[in-house]
């Protein structure tokens, strides 16, 4: 699994940001996505064939993944290849800008690759067709089996250049895979690339598992497992498969998340029926009690600077959202709207809290400022909850359940994503039913 980390040598060929005319505004729903042509990467004829990878098709396959990534943002409109006006190798050297403009493209991605000596060398360029300029270019070398990640890294670089925001394509999503009838669901931890590829199952389904969350700094997961019928928070290293129970609590621990520096776990511990919030330092193993209240305190989430904690409590009678300092002082209720609120999750940008809202039998995913003002409901459904942020704070992934019939038939659980603008709601394709998604940080930083 070590090779998972790219042996990545990146060097900039040139950056020409002056005089660039195209820029994608992602601060509002984009009703006019940018037309972009993604040329297949030219495969160098000196490339050698490999057993498990079709090298001749690699250029096409990489550009298809880039197109799919762009399409999924709702911000770009990848143009059909039939209309392309130049061969990949020639376009990569020097596009005929006026011809590409004729097919209404505003940006063009070109590239080439070489597979030789067990290495994959890739370079790509992004062209501003309106200004007739190269906007960015990059070349790197990695192992051929990493070719999908190459496509995601190129996607991230282009997204960053065109939007001014970090990308989120070279990422993974961990979730709970579900199967079986509704009253006897089998649940396994599963992980996949952000685009649904490379699904792997991390547990066998022998015990109930819930709410996996990524460490924002490495490849660790924290989740709730009913191993030996004792619901406890666990740590799992997805590189080594090693797992351990977190702390030595005499009752249920649940609702775990990592602190932004990845060094602590924050979670609820239920003692004599009452749930309060605790942290445990993963190095020193020191446990700290953060809340001490006779109400249910759960779903804690740190602010990205680690100074504050948002959480869910029913101390006012019904579930509402609260924010406090990370030592538990200065508790402030932030939701006063009609309805009840759960699952507050602090944006990695620090400016917003995503949440689940329940009102009159309907469920909403929304965002609000960290003081509770500016509530915006993004999507309404029969049942949905548990938003998780893309690492750039632009997209939320969450899960939805359908209404079941009298025998539980018609029930499904699926993953969805939506931009924080409220636009571009999309179903994520998973191999099984799925719930409790958590988005990783960028794998290459």
């Amino acid at each position, binding site marked *: 699994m070590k090779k998972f980390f790219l042996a990545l040598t990146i060097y900039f060929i040139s950056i020409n940001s002056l005089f660039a005319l195209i820029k994608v505004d992602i601060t509002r729903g984009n009703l006019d996505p940018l037309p972009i042509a993604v040329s297949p990467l030219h495969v160098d004829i000196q490339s050698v064939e490999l057993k498990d990878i079709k090298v001749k098709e690699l250029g096409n396959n990489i550009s298809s993944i880039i197109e799919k990534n762009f399409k999924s943002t709702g911000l770009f409109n990848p143009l059909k290849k039939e209309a392309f006006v130049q061969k990949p190798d020639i376009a990569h050297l020097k596009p005929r800008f006026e011809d590409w403009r004729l097919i209404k493209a505003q940006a063009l991605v070109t590239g080439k690759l070489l597979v030789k000596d067990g290495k994959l060398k890739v370079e790509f360029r992004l062209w501003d067709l309106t200004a007739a300029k190269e906007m960015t270019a990059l070349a790197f070398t990695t192992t051929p089996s990493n070719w999908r990640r190459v496509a995601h890294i190129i996607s991230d670089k282009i997204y960053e250049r065109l939007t001014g925001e970090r990308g989120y394509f070279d990422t993974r999503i961990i979730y709970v895979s579900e199967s079986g009838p509704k009253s006897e669901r089998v649940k396994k931890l599963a992980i996949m690339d952000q685009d649904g590829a490379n699904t792997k199952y991390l547990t066998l389904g022998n015990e109930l598992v*819930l709410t996996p969350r990524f460490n924002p700094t490495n490849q660790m997961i924290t989740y709730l497992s009913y191993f030996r019928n004792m*619901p406890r928070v666990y740590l799992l290293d997805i590189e080594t498969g090693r797992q351990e129970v977190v702390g030595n609590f005499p009752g249920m621990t649940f609702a775990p998340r990592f602190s932004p520096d990845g060094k602590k776990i924050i979670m*609820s511990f*239920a003692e004599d029926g009452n*749930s309060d919030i605790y942290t445990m330092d993963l190095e020193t193993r020191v446990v700290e009690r953060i809340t001490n209240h006779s109400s249910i305190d*759960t*779903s804690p989430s740190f602010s990205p600077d680690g100074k504050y904690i948002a959480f869910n409590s029913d101390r006012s009678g019904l579930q509402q959202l609260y924010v406090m300092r990370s030592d538990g002082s200065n508790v402030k209720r932030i939701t006063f709207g009609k309805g009840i609120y759960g699952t507050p999750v602090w944006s990695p940008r620090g400016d917003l809290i995503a949440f689940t809202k329940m009102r009159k039998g309907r469920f909403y995913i929304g965002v609000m400022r960290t003081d509770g003002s500016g509530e915006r409901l993004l999507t309404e459904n029969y*049942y949905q909850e548990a938003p998780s942020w893309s690492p750039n704070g632009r997209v939320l992934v969450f899960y939805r359940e359908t209404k079941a019939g009298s025998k*539980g038939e018609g029930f499904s659980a699926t993953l969805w994503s939506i931009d924080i603008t409220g636009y571009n709601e999309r179903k994520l394709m998973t191999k099984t039913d799925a719930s409790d998604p958590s988005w990783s940080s960028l794998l290459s930083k």
Partner: protein
Amino acid sequence: MTFNKNLKNILLVVFATLILSACSTAKKSGDIEGDVYTGKETVKYLASGVPDRVFFATNKSSLTTASRATLRKQATFLRKNKKLNVTIEGHADERGTREYNLALGERRANAAKDYLMTYGISGKRITTISYGKEKPVNPASSTLAWSQNRRSVTVKVN
């Protein structure tokens, strides 16, 4: 629904059917009182006359009069069977967030445990576990199913 099999008088049968169906609808809604399930459909028994579960109102863990009566029967049963230990499973319906429901199930299980303890059952004989919304007894998405799923169930462990 059982129909009167005496078909000698058709008018009487029609009349009886009308009454029966009226009764049956009334009974359905009568199975939920103020949001709490009061029926017997899903109930199992620890012993004859000792129901294994009690039901709760939405988002609540307080025990109703009927629930307390059930738990007193469980306490009597446990006093008679001194070597028996139990686990109380707390459950929630599917209409809440997963994590809150885990906490709520825990609170419900402990509400039942605490009540048994006030009737002299040692806390050492009772463990609790919350399953939140993970193990519905009725998988339907209906008011009736949700009321049946908001429950704590006392299970023998030995």
